[in-house]
């Protein structure tokens, strides 16, 4: 018992016993929460996956690739020979559309582009940062299927990004390419599944083609 009442000011109410630890936990926890939320919020998984911008021409891959069976390489011609897959020039569209659906409203921007010579301005969906170098031909020619990075384009009315395309995601495959290798003739067949176990197939293909994906920084950060 304290005789001197003046010291009562130093006796805090009971609820303050939990205040200090609660504030500490709250602060630290809050910090942790903010970090996690921001990290997740800015990560490619949150920002890029699901990106499906509206294009100037409502080109449907589901129709052309899925239904009509046009191969990826008919339009994306340089995917096996150069770094860029290259979006096709209007000429390529007009190869068919000179006669097919020549009166379609949806194709007006294409017809305009062809006659004026001004390009169709597509919105880029799969965008890597400028400081990164990615070479399509290195992947396509070695048996990485289009679907591994771009998903089931042949079912998309509007092209959507399905994979995060982050550095960590790329490194996953570079460290373990067996999961994504396929025989070269099936590279553009988006619905192909291996008959045998993918890992076993991948191992075999890796050995046959001597596939050693580099993991040096300067592979991509040139």
């Amino acid at each position, binding site marked *: 018992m304290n005789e001197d009442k003046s010291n009562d000011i130093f006796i805090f109410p009971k609820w303050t016993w939990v205040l200090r630890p609660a504030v500490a936990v709250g602060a630290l926890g809050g910090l942790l929460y903010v970090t996690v939320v921001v990290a997740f919020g800015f990560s490619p998984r949150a920002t890029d996956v699901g990106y499906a911008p509206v294009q100037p021409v409502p080109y449907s891959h589901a129709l052309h690739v899925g239904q009509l069976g046009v191969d990826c390489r008919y339009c994306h011609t340089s995917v096996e020979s150069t770094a860029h897959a290259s979006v*096709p020039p209007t000429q390529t569209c007009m190869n068919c559309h000179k006669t097919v659906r020549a009166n379609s409203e949806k194709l007006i921007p294409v017809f305009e582009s062809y006659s004026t*010579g001004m390009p169709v301005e597509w919105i880029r969906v799969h965008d890597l940062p400028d400081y990164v170098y990615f070479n399509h031909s290195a992947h396509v020619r070695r048996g990485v299927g289009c679907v591994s990075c771009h998903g089931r384009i042949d079912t998309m009315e509007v092209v959507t990004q399905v994979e995060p395309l982050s550095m960590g995601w790329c490194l996953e495959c570079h460290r373990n390419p067996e999961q994504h290798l396929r025989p070269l003739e099936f590279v553009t067949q988006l619905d192909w599944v291996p008959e045998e176990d993918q890992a076993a197939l991948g191992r075999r293909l890796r050995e046959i083609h001597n596939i050693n994906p580099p993991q040096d920084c300067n592979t991509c950060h040139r």
Partner: protein
Amino acid sequence: MSSMNRNTGVTYWRSLDELERTPEFQEAVRREFPDDNWDQLPPATRRQFLMVMGASLAMAGLTACRWPKEEIVPFAHRPEGRTPGVPEHFATSLELGGAALGMLVTSFDGRPIKAEGNPMHPDSLGSLNAIAQAEILGLYDPDRSQRLLLREGGQEYVKQWSDFESVAADVFSGSGAGVAVLAGSSSSPTRAGLRDRFLEAHPEARWFEYEAISRDNERFGTAMVFGAAHRVQPSLATAGVVACFDADPLFDHPAALRLAREFAAARNPKTGSGARLYVSESNYSLTGARADHRVAVASRNVPQLLARVTQQLVAVHGLELPPAAAGYAGSVSQAPTDEESRFVELLARDLASHRGESVILVGPRQAPAVHALAAILNTALGATGSTIAYALEPDSERPHHMDALGELASAIQSGEVSTLLILGGNPAYDGPADLGFADLLAKVPLSIHLSLYDDETSQRCSWHLPRAHTLESWGDGRAWDGSVTTRQPLIEPLYGGRSDLEVLALALGGGMESGYELVRGVMREAAADAGPEEFWRRVLHDGVVEASAWDRVTPQARPGDLAVAVDAFRELLDADRPTAERPELVLVADPQVHDGRFANNGWLQELPDALTKITWDNALLVSPATARDMGLSNGEIAEVSVGGSTIELPCYVLPGQARNSLTVSLGYGRTAAGQVGNGVGVDAYVLRTSSAPHVLSSVSVRATGRSYPLATTQDHFAIDTLGFAERNVRVENLVREASLDAYLANPNVFHEHEHHPPLVSLWKDHEYEGEQWGMAIDLNTCIGCNACIVACQSENNIPVVGREQVLNQREM
């Protein structure tokens, strides 16, 4: 072993300051980071802090969680063979001083990014010089003129090409009375054709050609003795002895790249012909820096030296000159110095014992009579056909560039010119001061200047037309040996410019003919057996027309001409030696900005001069002895006066400069070059007169006592005194020298001088697998042309830092 130089005090030094370890130099070395003068940094105020941080904070606003949308914009019609992202190469050319240099330019997605040499071009052989490498930067220069301007009544009006077309239709009609065209030197067959058509359509019009840095003295020299102007084509591939008199064939020659390559091959110890190099000159050229024997002589005394060599050759070695040329071997009254005597003796002996393998070259600053003598000597020494070849100069009636401008100036003066069309060039800036061309332009009622920049001349003309850059225009030209070279654009004119061919065609009244049509027309006409279209495509691909070099001729000296030439030469022998009170001043083309046309090119301005290492300025080059006599110190501003005109510029003490002969580079001190070139250096053209365009006498120099810090990289990253001393002790291992004889006797002579047995490593060495890349520079063939520096800057996007940062040792 005894042939290796022992440490007999061989010291490698970069500047006299370093050699003498002056207190200033030591201080500069002590400060590892010259700009870290912490006491003198400007104080950072709170206001500045907030300004800087405020900017960053503003940019930290989160506009979107995803980066801004990017577009893919493909072609509507993709050209055949074009794959986006894959670079293509196109053969084109650059013309400087009337000779075309072939280039292979890399185009990435339709934009030229890098210039390389064209292996099929005889003057390039796959290489380029610094200026050609830097042309890429000139193409993208934002200071280039982007609009047509009409200056009238004190006002400036922005015009369109259609406006000019209607004016041109008016002005260039009729017989051409009062019309004059001033153009730069060009070997373009298309332009020659247009000129002929123009003069035919307008018989009273006059055509003048002017080039500030002209090689006409050589032309006139050959004309003096051979009766017609000839093109001198040296070849060093089989040369055993090369003698240069104020000449710089390895760098300052239209075929310099080829000559440097041949020289390198000739200097191969095992397979080369030797090419022992004797150089006599007043300033320090790159050829002089490579010379085996060099004597520094004032430019006006070079004829005496050549005369002595002739005398020695005839008297002692029995060289036979044509009878009418006997006067060349007469005695020289001026007493030679010991150095000169020795040089003459060695050279004469070597020339005489290498007949058919030797060549005498004279530089463009020497008078025609000296070139004439060289031609006679070369013929007598049997050089024709092996180390020198001749072809007839096309357009042999053309007057000397200086005379042409003089004629135009007097025509303007007497009011004969009412319309003046200037195709390229910058005569208001680089014309000789005595003509006063800048003021004369005001007298011409209608003057039109086609130019890359709105420069000094354009600002004094009525019309300024933006010119298409070399990389934006169709054209052609001829290499030094006459090979027809094409030029094709890598990109459409960025700023709506037109080439000189197109403007000339406009003046012909043909409307807007495109350069493509003009050049193609000329090429197709020239097609021999193959179909014209196939020929055209082949020529565009190669950049050069096969076997189109001029035919070689063997000119004969005519006795009547010889007598006149001898007299002209002997007059030159009266020149006395310059003194410290009356030194000689030599105006030279700058190795970086040439005659000033490249003054706005940052790469070239920041390119350290090969010997002085000066960036961003020009200086008065003076030898140490002369500086002492004149009371000048390094970096001190000197006042140079010639015939009433005066300039003030800093001086630079360069060991190796001739006694009492000073050198200044032309091409600086520009006022309308652009943001990079304005105000850099001092304009030496004010001292130039049409009678003495390069070598000036009766010069007076006065030290002003003020100094100017020249941004030179000479002493950058120098070592301290102890290190310097230790380096000199070890230098025989660091820089292994041996004479050619020692090397041929024992090719391992360099390896044998080991000062310790192979070292055993204390730890496991790193295993290197796979390929390794290294870069080695063969210093036996490097001449210091600096093209590699500009090429690296071009390839790797290396920034230009500016004069102040170079002074802070921050040059890239």
